[in-house]
């Protein structure tokens, strides 16, 4: 425990998550709801808590409001107390200029004053973007045992994915001998997970030398490559479940991983903690399953009322699936209503959506990619933004995006074709 307490956590939670499209258009990626009861940042915060870490700086930037509401004072993760705390660190005006964070290293550099207050031995730098369970205490212990200046968590990824990561080459002892940031034709498939344990003094020196002289602003691109060979860099290997959920398809897949512990994602055994009191969620009644309901392979949160069919899906609190409705391979967020006789298939419904009676959402030809955002949506999934309304009898195809608040009742047509986007 001693090792963990000497470590200050800097949690990067400013991620834009642009490939999540409208799911992250009004909230930072770490605040995107996940797994029927959580937000993505809960996984990192729960890891912090279960690793015995008690001091956290939370670096926010992009649309931080739902995130700040959610984190509150930090009591949900035991971060309130005399020696415990979580402090929100938004971008701030410096002496010379107003600076938005220009990268991960810049965000930490601009908050050196915060770290100075605590004079930690080590700094653990994380992002709040990933779904995983990891014991940071073991990583910190390994860092100390090896006397490293920097320890980077790494995992083996498929070669075809290496272009999305910083990758490193290690010798047999685990010492990092090469590090290269995202590029095609990688020389290693040992990917950096963006989790760093820095010796505090080394961190200050390196950030001052690189960011302080405005030569670079990013850990993976600018800071770490220059440390190889000059500093003691070690890799801490991780081989458990870890997902970036950076795309709509990976988001749906990872949610469905919650349905089967064999996937490696086990919410119960991971003991993920969340702020259940946020907007009164904790007081929702139990789940009610009606006489003619069918529920199979599903994760269902409190306050849901199931009168129809729910298969291979994740339902957040307060969802109502009316009689005769079916929900297949879907993620449905809080307080959405799936009307009587309607069908929702391979879709993601943000909060408070309404699907009218006998409406159809998500059926069509998945080869037709979304016309506006083909890079985000070409895998046969439809996404309804927060408070979108699909009227009775209406049909929304696949690869469709309905923007938040759009009411298709006002649409002249009775359907939204495959690949179409409904804008406000």
């Amino acid at each position, binding site marked *: 425990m001693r090792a963990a307490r000497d470590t200050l956590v800097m949690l990067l939670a400013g991620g834009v998550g642009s490939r999540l499209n409208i799911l992250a258009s009004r909230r930072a990626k770490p605040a995107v709801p996940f797994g029927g009861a959580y937000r993505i940042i809960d996984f990192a915060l729960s890891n912090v808590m279960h690793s015995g870490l008690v001091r956290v700086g939370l670096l926010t930037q992009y649309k931080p409001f739902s995130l700040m509401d959610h984190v509150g004072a930090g009591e949900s993760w035991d971060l309130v107390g005399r020696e415990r705390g979580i402090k929100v660190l938004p971008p701030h005006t410096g002496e010379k200029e107003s600076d938005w964070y220009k990268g991960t290293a810049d965000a930490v550099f601009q908050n050196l004053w915060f770290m100075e207050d605590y004079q930690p031995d080590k700094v653990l730098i994380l992002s709040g973007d990933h779904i995983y369970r990891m014991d940071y205490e073991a990583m910190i212990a390994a860092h100390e045992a090896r006397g490293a200046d920097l320890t980077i968590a790494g995992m083996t990824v498929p070669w075809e994915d290496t272009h999305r990561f910083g990758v490193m080459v290690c010798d047999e002892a685990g010492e990092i001998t090469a590090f290269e940031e995202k590029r095609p034709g990688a020389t290693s498939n040992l990917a950096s997970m963006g989790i760093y344990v820095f010796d505090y003094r080394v961190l200050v020196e390196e950030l001052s030398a690189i960011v302080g002289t405005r030569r670079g602003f990013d850990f993976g691109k600018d800071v770490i490559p220059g440390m190889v060979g000059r500093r003691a860099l070690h890799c801490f290997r991780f081989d458990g479940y870890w997902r970036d959920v950076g795309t709509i398809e990976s988001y749906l897949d990872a949610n469905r991983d919650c349905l089967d512990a064999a996937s490696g994602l086990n919410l119960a055994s991971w003991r993920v903690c969340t702020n259940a009191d946020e907007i009164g969620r904790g*007081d929702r009644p139990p789940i009610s399953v009606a006489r003619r309901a069918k529920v199979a392979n599903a994760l269902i949160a409190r306050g849901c009322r199931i009168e129809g069919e729910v298969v291979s899906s994740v339902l957040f609190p307060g969802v109502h699936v009316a009689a005769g409705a079916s929900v297949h391979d879907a993620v449905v967020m809080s307080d959405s209503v799936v009307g009587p006789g309607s069908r929702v298939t391979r879709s993601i419904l943000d909060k408070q959506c309404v699907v009218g009676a006998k409406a159809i959402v998500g059926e069509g030809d998945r080869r037709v990619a979304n016309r506006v955002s083909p890079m985000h949506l070409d895998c046969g999934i439809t996404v309804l933004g927060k408070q979108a309304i699909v009227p009775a009898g209406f049909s929304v195809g696949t690869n469709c995006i309905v923007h938040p608040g759009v009411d298709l009742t006002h649409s002249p047509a009775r359907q939204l074709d495959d690949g179409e986007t409904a804008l406000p």
Partner: protein
Amino acid sequence: MGAQIVGMVLAGGRVDELLVLTAKRPKSAVPIWGMYRFIDFALSNMMHSGIDVVGLLSQYRPYSLNTHLANGSPWDYVGRRRQLKVLSPYSGSADTDWYRGTADAIWQNLNFVDHFSPELVLIASGDHVSSMDYRPLVRQHRTTQADLTIVLKRVPQEQAAQYGTAVLDGDGRVLRYEEKAPKPASDLASLTVYLFAADVLARRLEENQREGSAFQLYSEVLPRMVAEGDRVFGYVHEGYWQYARTLDGYYDASLDILRPQAPDLAGWQVRTNVAATASADPPPALFGADGLIVDSLVCAGCSIAGEVRSSVLSPWVTVERGAVVRSSVLMDGCHVAAGAVVERAILDKQVTVGRDARIGGGKAVANRSHPDVLASGAVVVGKATRIPAGCEVGSGAVLAPDIGEARFAGGHVAAGATVEP
């Protein structure tokens, strides 16, 4: 510091008729409808009715109740002018006084009430289930300039003898109040919710201390106030109300929530302390690919791979593949192993049912030791009792808490039997 109304919740009673369910907790702390405890209903009513100060009278084994109440924050009772205070018995100057009755319990805590100099004192039972807005009651009380307003509910005449009943005149004034009369003159039953003018309450309780013998509000204070001409009025509550006085009553009330005309829990806005015992938040309920679940109420943290019908499951209940649960109430953390069948049973928290065990079902047999409280044939299993693989427990059996598997060496508990600790 002032408050117009001080709420006093009577939450200390064991209620022996619930047998093993109240072995280690007062009735107000008994779980109901998956995630609630009885006390939640009174506290939620107080909260939603804008009563800012509540004293809670606890006596019998208060540990689980105190844990559940925490600092009152689940009911928003934290703030400069808002508080929920647990009032336990304390030693007086003369001797150690346990509460001798409801009137005595309130009397011993009049200093708490006086501290706020309230106009009214609302006394409510903490072990009833209802959704009641007390504000119209307060308005009526003021309009009629009452000394006491008793909340009543119309019940079937044949059940009226179980209650205190009141005869009202055309203005709603109580002409006569009788407690559990063999042939009641009225079908308006008292729900043990009393709104008193604070000064009258203090005077009548002091008098009761001098002249009473049972120190009960219902049998001594109320009848005397009516008889001596105090302004005592009735206020008739419409809507669901449940007491669950016996194990049969508890079983029926538990399954009430599945009926078509069930109370709308979301609409009631019942609040509870979901974090009271959690080392981690329960994840959403997980339903397996081959499971079957219908007509049931299920809480977060449950994992259902088997068959569940017409049942109420509290958080963290596991029903393994191939197991069957029918018409049953399973409290927090129960585990039903593969091949086991649980039918018409109440399992208190953390009961485990081994593989292929058979609990309940078949012909309904009354419990032989307690036929007056358990005649429905339901099986009742006390907290953390472990029923081994292959064991059969007959209809109407009652099993004490904390019984280990070794006690079931015969592999059989006869219908109607009671297994003592």
